[in-house]
């Protein structure tokens, strides 16, 4: 079974600065997908970024980028130029290639962006 670990329950960052959220996972599979989801107080789960394990290039989406280290089973999220609207819970998630779209989530990191 896969496990996903987020070691930072809470983090804070000043507006316009950069913050990195950590995620590690454990799997015996060689082909899989990794995700970061954002959950603001509205409860909506919003897909932030997605990484395919067979791609060496780190995914980027505007101010969001990942540092994917497959050998270390690490998948951190970097948020640049933090904005107040980035305040939310962030969940790292794993999906095996043959998992039929099923996600395994980490425990989450609560991010507070301060003005």
């Amino acid at each position, binding site marked *: 079974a896969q496990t996903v670990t987020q070691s930072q329950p809470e983090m804070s960052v000043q507006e316009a600065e950069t913050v990195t959220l950590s995620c590690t996972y454990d799997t015996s599979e060689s082909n899989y997908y990794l995700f970061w989801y954002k959950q603001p107080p509205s*409860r*909506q789960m919003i897909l932030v970024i997605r990484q395919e394990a067979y791609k060496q290039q780190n995914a980027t989406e505007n101010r969001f980028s990942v540092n994917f280290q497959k050998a270390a089973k690490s998948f951190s999220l970097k948020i640049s130029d933090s904005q107040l609207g980035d305040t939310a819970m962030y969940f790292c998630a794993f999906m095996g290639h043959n998992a039929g*779209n*099923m*996600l395994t989530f980490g425990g*989450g990191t609560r991010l507070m962006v301060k003005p």
Partner: protein
Amino acid sequence: SAVISQKPSRDICQRGTSLTIQCQVDSQVTMMFWYRQQPGQSLTLIATANQGSEATYESGFVIDKFPISRPNLTFSTLTVSNMSPEDSSIYLCSVGPRGSNEKLFFGSGTQLSVL
């Protein structure tokens, strides 16, 4: 992406009663899932809603407690039966659209409080 309508958005229920949550998608989707998010916790998969057959439940979840229907490719319901205060959670519907390239989208969730 898929537009997902989940109803009700929140409810307060009495112990021993049942609540049915609806999930409607604006397009046909292959996979539909139900997740539970207990207060301050991460998301846990309850079951996969299979069109035309019985749902597939994860360990710790049973059909008698969480019956699921999926009559077609755009709609599913989750019932929380014989509720107790321990069932107070956010329940989220998730879908994997056809050709989604392993992207999952979530409904806005149902906030359930059991008194």
